[in-house]
């Protein structure tokens, strides 16, 4: 069987405004053979925020994708929040292994205050293979 990998977009590269509502994206990995690799990036602007933007990785133990949401009944924290701090032009990049047992994956960005930042979250999915 041929090896099939699929790029997945969880949160496309975009600006996250100061004090905006949490920005979330999620994908259903129930059909993927896995394992996969998740990358997250947060970039501060020329004026840094007054409190940092943070990113949290969550998973859901569900056979179908639940509604987007914070950690709670459906979504459970897989990796705790990380952030780049408040320095001017700071860049935070993180790479996480996503095991084949994971059913649903969500990334949640909590908006900074004071200034917008740029965020993104992508996944290299091991879709299927020998």
């Amino acid at each position, binding site marked *: 069987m041929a090896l099939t990998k699929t790029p997945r977009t969880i949160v496309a590269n975009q600006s996250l*405004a*100061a*004090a905006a509502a949490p920005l979330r994206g999620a994908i259903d990995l129930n059909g993927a053979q896995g394992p996969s690799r998740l990358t997250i990036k947060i970039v501060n602007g020329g*004026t*840094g925020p*007054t*409190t940092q933007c943070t990113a949290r990785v969550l998973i859901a133990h569900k056979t179908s994708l639940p509604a987007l949401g914070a950690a709670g009944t459906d979504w459970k924290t897989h990796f705790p929040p990380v952030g780049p701090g*408040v320095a*001017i032009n700071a860049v935070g990049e993180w790479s996480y292994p996503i095991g084949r047992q994971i059913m649903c994956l969500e990334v949640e960005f909590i908006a900074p*205050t*004071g*200034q*917008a930042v740029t965020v993104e979250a992508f996944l290299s999915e091991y879709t299927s293979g020998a």
Partner: protein
Amino acid sequence: MAILDEILALPTELRAEQDTQKIADALPLRITREKTEIGKGTLLEVLGQDLGNLLCDFVDADAEFRHVKHLLANGWLDISLDSVRAGLDAIAAGNVMAGFAQAHADAIKVLAERSSPVDEFEVRKLCWSDDGQWLV
């Protein structure tokens, strides 16, 4: 004056640039004190030999300073302390020692002072609201 008041007193054109680093750089340096122990050698260095000798002799001879003289002799006189700084000011103001003026007291006191620029992050927190509005 609070930092916010100092920012608001800056030229409108500077504030309109919304550059918090430039604003921080435009604010006066902050003076803080650090524990600084000195001895007679430092007094001689700062005041010169003649006036330094006079001040050392004055401290040694005045019963008011009978314990201070030991601190000074051992290099333990902490000129960051309010009481010590007030003592220097009092000597200068009281004309109790010929030739020792306020400028000389200040020259000794400044040894314990450290100046540092206002932190840009402090300015940033004052200039931007949580939702990204420029406030000043």
